[in-house]
């Protein structure tokens, strides 16, 4: 959906609507209040009894049946179709009060008509304030919707022409000057600059970009001119995905709200019945029709299903909004509740703790080094594995021309094999060599030495004879250690899981500050390891979301790391837009804070109704006071959710 700057959002329209009604209502209600109060409080009658009732009925009419018509109509419709709602209570309360004014002429009851318009006016006022608070609750998410660029300057021949963002096509070259917004996702084609990505990833430091770098739409180009080739447009952009995630999260439920939802469903009819019973009881006890009507009206208007219904969604909205601003995308409401039970956090190694960009650091071989690298890289170029890429990159750096490979095969979790120039080449870990009965004794000491440094070591064999080994190192992310320390301080048990062998894994884990390691795990076994750990407590799994999808799903809370411009949408209950482990700490803090708010709100909403309804039944509250209390309670809930912003995450 496109959002232009001039388009008024539903929230704003709602706010304006209530504001208009509020002003109009009070113009009529203030005189009503003056007439009534001067009579009740000071015994000063502006009009005679009968005239007063007529004046109040006339003044109240537009407040209820014109400005309040939508509420009345919805409410009555609700009663007749058995789809009761909040409006049903207000409609009944005001209409009954209004009718007492008319009936008072026949001497049947006392006149309550002034109360009718006052209830409606306070209801409208409450709704207006609530709509402002609700608008505030969703401000971060709305900002996200408006974040996208509206226009782009594309290069056609030598000319730059400005077009609407919707007209940009994949492959277009877009010119972005310093200070401008990058219109869509793309890859830098020419130019160098730094880019502020904080609005998308929450990362406050600008990121350097040069030819070949990926850029994200809606981020701000800082100091150089960038020529960008558009790679993703419209619904496929990073920003569009984030918006989708955040919006869909609002469509998920937090388990704790189930009871509140159940109560909301039967709330209004229940109150109607209670109100009727109250009327009958009071009539029986006091024989005073007027008093009984007044009390019944109080019961109708004091009950507040809104506070109950708003308690969870508002807090979730504010929480996910703050999260989105910081690059933490909550996909499922359930995750924030489960998070507080989590005791064990399992990290995937590659790409999560480490940068996921391994580099060749050591090559030891009995044959010519160039020839050795040529054979290794030729075989590895067909594979997608990070280690393979590291070896291929090394060959590229040295400008080595690669040979053709036949009968290529991936030995899952162990290595690769294939034929080069008629010779069978095998590259992989010790397991692969053992399985093929290849003797690598000569390199054993060297392998141990490299592994102790945290380097993954692969053995290269040609025609069943080992010709050398390659050590590949994947450096850990700068902030991994700090994040893990923080988690330990919060008493979490941390575990690293990896396909690497024990020694390499332990070396990396100790660099990151993790004591517990599960090594030699095949990709498909990660899920099983999670199940095992779950016997000891709730598990959060942190992974890149691509290879780790089953483990992410199996864990109690799956935290998927977004890397670069790829975002793992389907896996993971929480997605971190920037790849930093700091995000895990923030996600935990945010979940706990949000869930705390939800609990507070639900408690308040229950507490309010449990206290207020009996007070109304006992006849201690005037209907107008009852209405004010009701309006205040739902405003309180929404405002309390907004206070979540003060939490540091």
């Amino acid at each position: 959906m496109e959002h232009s700057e001039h388009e008024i959002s539903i929230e704003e329209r709602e706010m304006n609507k209530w504001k208009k009604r509020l002003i109009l209502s009070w113009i009529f209600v203030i005189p009503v209040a003056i007439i009534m109060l001067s009579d009740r409080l000071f015994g000063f009658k502006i009009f005679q009894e009968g005239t007063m009732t007529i004046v109040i009925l006339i003044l109240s009419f537009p407040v209820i049946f014109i400005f309040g018509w939508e509420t009345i109509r919805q409410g009555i419709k609700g009663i007749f179709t058995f789809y009761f709602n909040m409006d049903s209570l207000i409609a009944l309360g005001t209409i009954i009060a209004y009718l007492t004014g008319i009936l008072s002429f026949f001497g049947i009851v006392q006149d309550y008509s002034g109360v009718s318009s006052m209830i409606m006016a306070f209801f409208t006022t409450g709704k207006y304030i609530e709509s402002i608070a609700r608008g505030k609750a969703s401000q971060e998410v709305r900002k996200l919707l408006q974040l996208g660029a509206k226009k782009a300057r594309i290069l056609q021949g030598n000319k730059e022409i400005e077009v609407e963002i919707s007209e940009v096509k994949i492959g277009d070259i877009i010119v972005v000057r310093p200070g401008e917004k990058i219109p869509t996702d793309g890859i830098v084609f020419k130019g160098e600059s730094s880019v502020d990505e904080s609005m998308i990833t929450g990362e406050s430091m600008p990121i350097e970009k040069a030819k070949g770098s990926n850029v994200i739409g809606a981020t701000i180009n800082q100091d150089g001119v960038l020529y960008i080739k558009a790679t993703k447009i419209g619904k496929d952009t990073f920003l569009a995905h984030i918006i989708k995630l955040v919006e869909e999260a609002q469509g998920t439920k937090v388990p704790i709200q189930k009871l509140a939802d159940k109560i909301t469903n039967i709330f209004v009819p229940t109150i109607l019945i209670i109100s009727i019973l109250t009327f009958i009881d009071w009539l029986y006890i006091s024989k005073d029709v007027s008093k009984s009507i007044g009390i019944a009206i109080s019961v109708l208007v004091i009950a507040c299903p809104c506070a109950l219904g708003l308690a969870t969604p508002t807090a979730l909205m504010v929480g996910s909004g703050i999260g989105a601003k910081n690059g933490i995308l909550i996909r499922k409401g359930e995750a924030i509740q489960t998070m507080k039970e989590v005791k064990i956090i399992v990290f995937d190694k590659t790409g999560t703790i480490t940068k996921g960009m391994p580099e060749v650091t050591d090559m030891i071989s009995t044959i010519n080094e160039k020839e050795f690298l040529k054979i290794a890289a030729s075989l590895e170029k067909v594979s997608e594995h990070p280690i393979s890429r590291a070896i291929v990159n090394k060959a590229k750096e040295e400008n080595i021309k690669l040979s053709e490979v036949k009968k290529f095969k991936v030995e899952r979790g162990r290595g690769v094999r294939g034929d080069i120039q008629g010779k069978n080449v095998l590259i992989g870990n010790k397991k692969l060599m053992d399985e093929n009965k290849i003797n690598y004794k000569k390199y054993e000491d060297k392998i141990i030495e490299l592994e102790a440094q945290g380097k993954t070591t692969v053995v290269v064999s040609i025609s069943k004879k080992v010709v050398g080994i390659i050590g590949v190192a994947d450096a850990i992310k700068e902030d991994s250690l700090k994040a893990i320390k923080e988690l330990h301080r919060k008493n979490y048990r941390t575990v690293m899981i990896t396909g690497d062998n024990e020694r390499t894994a332990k070396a990396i884990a100790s660099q990151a500050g993790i004591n517990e390691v599960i090594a030699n795990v095949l990709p498909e076994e990660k899920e099983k390891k999670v199940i095992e750990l779950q016997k000891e407590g709730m598990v959060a799994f942190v992974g890149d979301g691509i290879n780790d999808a089953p483990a992410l799903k199996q864990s109690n809370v799956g935290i998927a790391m977004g890397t670069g411009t790829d975002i793992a949408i389907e896996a993971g209950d929480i997605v971190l837009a920037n790849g930093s482990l700091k995000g895990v700490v923030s996600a935990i803090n945010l979940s706990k804070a949000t869930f705390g708010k939800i609990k507070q709100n639900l408690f308040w909403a229950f507490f309010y109704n449990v206290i207020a309804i009996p007070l109304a039944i006992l006849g201690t509250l005037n209907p107008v006071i009852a209405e004010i209390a009701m309006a205040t309670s739902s405003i309180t809930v929404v405002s309390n959710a907004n206070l979540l912003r003060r939490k540091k995450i």
Partner: protein
Amino acid sequence: MKKIKLTIEGMHCASCASNIERAVKKVSGVNEVVVSLMTNKAFVDVDDKVNKEEIKKAVGKVGYKVVDVEE
């Protein structure tokens, strides 16, 4: 099975959201409905053969308006 997203105008309270959920759930071909009061959106899980007009009508019947349908 597919998901559609409706933008709904006129919701102002929690019972509104639950009423819409109740009403839309009764439309044949609808498996699951979640209404978000905060974003004015309804997320509906439907069969392929569902009639979208029926859903709109159901929302209209309980007093609200569907202003946008996205697949």
